[in-house]
Structure formats: C-alpha cells, structure tokens
C-alpha cells in the first residue's frame, strides 16, 4: 500500500484516475507499459475491459459507449496510433470525447529501429488528426497529465492523448 511519503508507482495510478472520471470502459491492445492498468481493469467489476484486434476498433467502441451514455478510455502503443489515423475522423467530426494513453516506442533508447518511424511520427500524426497531446517523461508528470487530458476530453468533447515516454517506462531489456 502506498503512504503519503511513498506515492504509488505511476503504473498503478492510471486506472484510479480514470475511475475518478467515471470511466466504465477500457479498450486496449496490450503493451507491457500498460500491464498494470490492464490487469486492474480486467479484475474490476465496474469496468468493461475490451481486448481489440487493432487499435482503430477502440475509437468506434468508445464512440458507441458514449452514444449509450458511458465514458471510456483506450490504452495503446505508439505503433497503434498509426492504425487509428483514418478512424480518428469519427471522433473529430462528431466531437466524441476520446482519451488515449499511448506508451511510446522509438523515442528514446530504442533497440528495435523498426519502431522508430511510427514512434517518431506519433505525436505529429495525432496533432494532424485533431488530437491534443501531452508527453509524460517523469513519474510525477503522469497523474497531472492524465487527469488534465481526461478533464479536457470529457468536459470539452475533445480528442486527447497522453504519450507515456520511453524514459518513463524504462528501456526494454533484450537480453534473456
């Protein structure tokens, strides 16, 4: 358990923040950086956790959930942002609240260069499609940025993404 002196690890802060905003649906394509939030969402009887085959499904799913009166958020990796581009038109045109939490690849200490093109295009690509973005590179950035993005998404019918940087997540270990 956390105390006032030792804050929860940022990974454990994500789902409680979302629940404070009355998020009922977590749509995701797994990433190691999201595993704590995914496990918590899957175990939470008040959350519908939906595993997607590809990230753009989450945009439609969350739009549908909002049509039905409920809030949700999507957890994805930066590569998955590329899968979302055309579908982001749905959120932009109808002004659906859209909250995306994106774990980054290809932006710092990346071993697998194949991640670099999409990782480095992630933020401008989101911006081009009308999604506001914030970057968290330090643990203490996570709570205020996720809270702020959720507030703007749900209070302003806006598309918002928080990018969780590789410096925050840590280097992926490639040695067995």
């Amino acid at each position, binding site marked *: 358990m956390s105390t006032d002196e030792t804050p929860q690890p940022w990974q454990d802060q994500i789902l409680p923040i979302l629940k404070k905003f009355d998020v*009922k*649906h977590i749509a995701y394509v797994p990433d190691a950086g999201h595993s704590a939030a995914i496990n918590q969402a899957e175990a939470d009887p008040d959350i*519908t956790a*939906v*595993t*997607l*085959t*590809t990230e*753009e*499904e*989450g*945009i*439609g*799913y*969350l*739009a*549908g*959930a*909002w*049509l*039905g*009166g*409920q809030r*949700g958020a999507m957890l994805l990796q930066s590569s998955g942002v590329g899968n979302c581009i*055309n*579908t982001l*038109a*749905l959120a932009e*045109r*109808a*002004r*659906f609240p859209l909250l995306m939490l994106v774990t980054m690849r290809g932006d710092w200490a990346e071993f697998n260069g194949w991640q670099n093109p999409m990782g480095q295009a992630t933020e401008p690509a989101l911006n081009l499609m009308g999604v506001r973005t914030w970057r968290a590179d330090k643990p203490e950035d996570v709570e205020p940025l996720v809270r702020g993005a959720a507030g703007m998404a*749900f*209070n*302003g*019918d806006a598309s918002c993404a928080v990018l969780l940087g590789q410096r925050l997540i840590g280097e992926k270990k490639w040695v067995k």
Partner: protein
Amino acid sequence: MGEVNSGTLLDRRAAVARLLEGRKDLLVVTGLGSPSYDVMAAGDHDNNYYLWAAMGSATTVGLGLAMSQPDKTVLVLTGDGEVMMGVGALATVSITGPKNLTIGVIDNGLFGETGQQRSHAGRGIEISKLAASMDFAWTGIIDDEAGIDDLRDRLSHRDGPQLATIKVTGENAPRVLPPRDGVHIKNRFRAALGFEPI
C-alpha cells in the same frame, strides 16, 4: 470458392424497410454509404446513428453502444465491404459477447459507392461463415422476405451476438442522404436516450 448470390436476391430498400417495420426502441447504427441511405429511406429516427466515414467502424460503434445499453436492442446495418474492412472487430464482438447486438450485413457483393467493383463477398467470402467460425451465438443467410421477418423477431431475443448476411441485388437505389452533421446526430441520439449535451 463457392458460388454466391446464385439464388433469389432481395431489393435492399424493401428488405431494410421490412426489417425496421414497427420498430420501437431499437437502436440502429449504420455503416457509411448505401446502408446509411437505406436506413434513412426507411425513415429518419432519433435512434439512428449514421456513419459517414471511418470505414470499418459500424461494428465497433454498435458494440460499444450495446455494452453501454445492455437493456436495449442494438442493430448494426452495414455493407459487406464495410464489415470486411474491420473484420477483426467481429472477433472483438465475439469475445466481448453482447447479447443485445445483431449485425445485419447488406451483401450485394459489390463496392456500390465506388463504381460497382466486385468485393470479397462477391468473390466468395461468406461473412456469416466468418462470424460462425468466431462463435457468434447465431448466424444466418437471408435471401427472402420470410428470412427478414425471422431476423426482425430475433433482434429482441437477447441471446446474441448475432450476424446475418442479407443478400441483395447489385442495383444502386437513389441516394437518400441522412444528416451529415455528426455532432447533431450524436446529440440527438443521446438525447433520445435521456442524456444531456455536455
């Protein structure tokens, strides 16, 4: 590949109008292009959500709606090309398991909006078999009015997810355009369910 569309084929407008006949609190999501026009031609309704883009998203919008409104019946009406663009979403529907969701695939075997090019369904892919292989609770192929009547009865069974391909002729009916203002349609739809704009 198996021969498809070899039997009788339905008129898409008549089939959709018949399926929606007598609707009460049915919630309808339409895929872009002809299915949106078909549903609009059957009568605009506050419980309709029309997609104009985001091809492949009709299934997922219907899924999110079905999961957030479990006491309502949700019908996705979309085209064979639209559903194939997001075909993985059928697997997501299956594992998520909404009992109140039915997907009606209006299957003309063509990309009707772009010049009648032959689609995957038109070249032998039977979408109801894909759904059956993904363990949908019920799937069917509909090519006559009795089948439409049966599907209409099934909508409210709440033992889905269900998917039917509705075999229609390749004839493009005159366009009947639904409103294009996505914000308006969103707010109208939500208001009909009792939700305020933000």
